[in-house]
C-alpha cells in the first residue's frame, strides 16, 4: 500500500514537470502548427538563466524564477518574428524540423560555450528542502511544491483559455484559423502572444524541473522526445490532454521502473505504442482546454 502510494506520488510529481514543460509545446503546435523542436532548448535557457541569476547575483529562488521566465520570453520573442513566422502552417513541417533543429544546435553550442559542459544547479530555498509527510510516505518538499505548481499552472491555463478574451480568441483561432481571421482576430499578434506563452511555460518548467531534469547543454536534445510524447498522447493544443498525458506517462514510467527496473525502457515505450493505438489522435483531440 505504501509502495503503491509512493509510486503514485512520484509518478504525479514527474508527470507534473513533464506537463509544465510540454503544455507550451502543445499550445504552439495546436495553434501555429509548428513542430517546435527547440522547445526543450527554451526550457533549458530558462533553467540556465535562473541558475545564473541565483548563483551570480544571489537572487532568491522566486526572484530567479520570475527573471528566468521573463528573460527567456524576451530573448525568444524576436525569434518568433524573425524565424518562426516564416514557417507557420502545416505545409512547412519539414522546414520546421530543419529550422528548429538548427536553432537547437545553436542554442546548445552557445550554452556550452558560455557556461561549459558541467551540470548547473538552481539552489533551493530552505523552505523547499527536506521532506514533508504525505500520509504514509514522506516526499521531498520540492516534489510536493512541483505538484502544487503543476496544479496551479493547469488551473491558470484553464482560466486563461476559458475565461479571458485572449483565450476565446486563441481557441477560435485553433479551431478555425480562416474563420478567426475573417472575424477580425489579429492572428499575428495572437501568434506572438501564444509563442510567448509557450516559451514562458517552457522556461517555468525548465526552472521548476531542474532537480529532475538536470541542467546541462544537451538538455535541449535529451528530453525533447519525452515532451513530444506528451503532446502526441495528449493531443496537440489541448491543455487538459497534456495534463492527462503527462500524468499517465509519468506514472507509467515510474511504475515500470519500480516493478521491472531492468526492462523499464521497454515498458515505457510499449505503453506509449499501446496508448497511441487506442487514442491515435491523443486523449483530447481538438479541444483547447
Amino acid at each position, binding site marked *: 500500500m505504501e509502495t503503491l502510494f509512493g*509510486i503514485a506520488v512520484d509518478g504525479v510529481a514527474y508527470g507534473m514537470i513533464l506537463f509544465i514543460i510540454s503544455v507550451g509545446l502543445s499550445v504552439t503546435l495546436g495553434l501555429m502548427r509548428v513542430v517546435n523542436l527547440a522547445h526543450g532548448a527554451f526550457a533549458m535557457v530558462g533553467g540556465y538563466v535562473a541558475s545564473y541569476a541565483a548563483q551570480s547575483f544571489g537572487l532568491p529562488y522566486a526572484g530567479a524564477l520570475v527573471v528566468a521566465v521573463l528573460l527567456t520570453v524576451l530573448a525568444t520573442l524576436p525569434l518568433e518574428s524573425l524565424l518562426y513566422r516564416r514557417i507557420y502552417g502545416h505545409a512547412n513541417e519539414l522546414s520546421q524540423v530543419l529550422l528548429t533543429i538548427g536553432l537547437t544546435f545553436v542554442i546548445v553550442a552557445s550554452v*556550452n560555450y558560455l557556461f561549459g*559542459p*558541467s551540470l548547473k544547479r538552481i539552489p533551493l530555498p530552505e523552505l523547499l528542502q527536506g521532506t514533508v509527510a504525505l500520509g504514509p510516505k514522506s516526499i521531498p518538499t520540492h516534489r510536493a511544491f512541483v505538484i502544487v505548481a503543476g496544479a496551479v499552472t493547469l488551473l491558470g491555463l484553464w482560466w486563461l483559455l476559458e475565461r479571458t478574451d485572449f483565450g476565446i480568441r486563441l481557441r477560435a483561432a485553433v479551431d478555425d484559423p480562416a474563420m478567426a481571421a475573417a472575424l477580425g482576430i489579429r492572428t499575428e499578434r495572437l501568434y506572438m502572444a501564444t509563442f510567448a506563452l509557450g516559451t514562458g511555460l517552457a522556461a517555468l518548467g525548465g526552472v521548476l524541473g531542474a*532537480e529532475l531534469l*538536470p541542467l546541462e547543454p*544537451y538538455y535541449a536534445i535529451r528530453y525533447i522526445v519525452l515532451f513530444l510524447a506528451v503532446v502526441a498522447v495528449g493531443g496537440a493544443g489541448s491543455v487538459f490532454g497534456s495534463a492527462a498525458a503527462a500524468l499517465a506517462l509519468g506514472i507509467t514510467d515510474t511504475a515500470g521502473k519500480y516493478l521491472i527496473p*531492468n526492462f523499464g525502457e521497454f515498458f515505457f515505450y510499449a505503453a506509449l505504442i499501446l496508448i497511441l493505438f487506442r487514442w491515435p489522435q491523443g486523449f483530447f483531440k481538438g479541444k483547447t482546454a
Partner: protein
Amino acid sequence: MTTTLRKALLGAVFATALGAGAADAATIKVGVIAPFSGPFAMFGQTFKEGIAVYQAVHGKTVGADTVEFVFKDLDQANPAQSKALAQELIVKEKVSFLAGFAFTPDAMAVAPLIDEANIPAVIFNAATSAITEKSPRFVRSSFTLWQNTVPLANHVAKLGVKKAITAVSDYGPGIDGEAAFKATFEKAGGAVVDTIRMPLKSTDFAPFMQRIKDSGAEAVYAFLPAGPTTLAFAKAFADNGLKEKGIQFFGPGDITQEPDLPALGDAVLGMTTSFHYSQAHESAANKSFLAKYKELFGSSDNATFTSVGAYDGVHLIYTMLAKTGGKSDGLKAVEAVKGLSWESPRGPVTIDPDSRHIRQTIYLRTVERVNGKLQNTEKDAFPAQPDFGYKLGK
C-alpha cells in the same frame, strides 16, 4: 575475361592511390578521439586540459621531436565513426599514437586498425576490462570498474553489512561493476538481494529508490557514468529518505566527480566512494598538477579523474617516444612502458606488464565540505590494485 579486366583496373586504381608519404620525423602527431561537443563534452575538455598541463610542465618536445596533438570530436559512443576518425588520423594525419576514448565501444572499434598500422593507443578513460584484451597495442591510464569495485566490496563486507543491493546503469561498465561487486561481496560472506539495471537515459530515480528501500538491503552499491544523471540519482537518494532508513551508499567515484560537485551540493555530503583520483589527494605531485592547472585555466575546480587519465596517458606517450625514438614500432613502444612506474598526481602507479592496464592505489573517500567547497576526502587507501576484471571473460 571481364573479371580479369576488372581486377586489372582496380589493381591499377589501388597502385595509384598507394603513394603513402613518410611521416615528418621532426613532428610526432598524437590523434585524440574524444567527445568535445555534445552531452559528454566534459570528457574532451578535461582530456584537453590534462594534456595541456602535461605539456606545460614537461615541454612539447621529446628529444628532437615535437609532439603535436590532433583532436577529433566524437560526440557520443559511435564505434563506426570512431573507426573512421582513427583511420583518418592514421592515413591522413599520419599520427604515431592514438589516444583519448571516453567510451568502450569507441576504443574497441580501433583495435583492428592499430594492429594493422602497428601504432599504440593510449586509453584515457574507457573502463571496461575487456578492451586491453582486444589488441596488444592498447595501454590504459584510467581505471576499470573491477579495479574500483573489488576493494570497495571488501570494505563494505568488513563494515559488517550482510545484505546489499546493486543499482547500475545498464551498459558495459555498469554491468562490470555489478558483476565485480556481486562476486567480491558474496565471496566475503554477504548477500546481494537484488540487482537493478537502470536505463542510461533515466532521469527520475525515485522509483528505483523506492525499490531499494523495499528490498531490505543495508547498503546499496551504485554506479552511473559521470554526467547529468548522477545529480538526479544523488538527489533522489537524499530525498527519498534512504539515509534515514539507515541504508548506506557506496559506489565508484564517477558519481562524485569534481566538476559535478558544486551542482550536486549537499545531496552527496557524506557519500562514500572508492576511486583512484581525488582533487583533494595530499601529495606534492598533485599540488603542482593543480597549481599548473590553475595557472593555465584560471581555476582547478574541473580537474578530475579524466584530466589525470589524460595527464598520465601523455606521460606514457612521452616515455614510449623517449625509449624508442622518433618513428615508433607500436609493439616495441608498448613493450617499453610495460612495468613502468611513476608518481602520478593520483599517487604511485605502475603499468601492469600483463594487462597493460594501470596498477594504482584505490582510495576510499567521503564527500566533505572544506573551506566552503565540497571535496572527496580520502579516508583509506588500498595500494597497488590491479584490474581484477582482466581476462575474466566478458
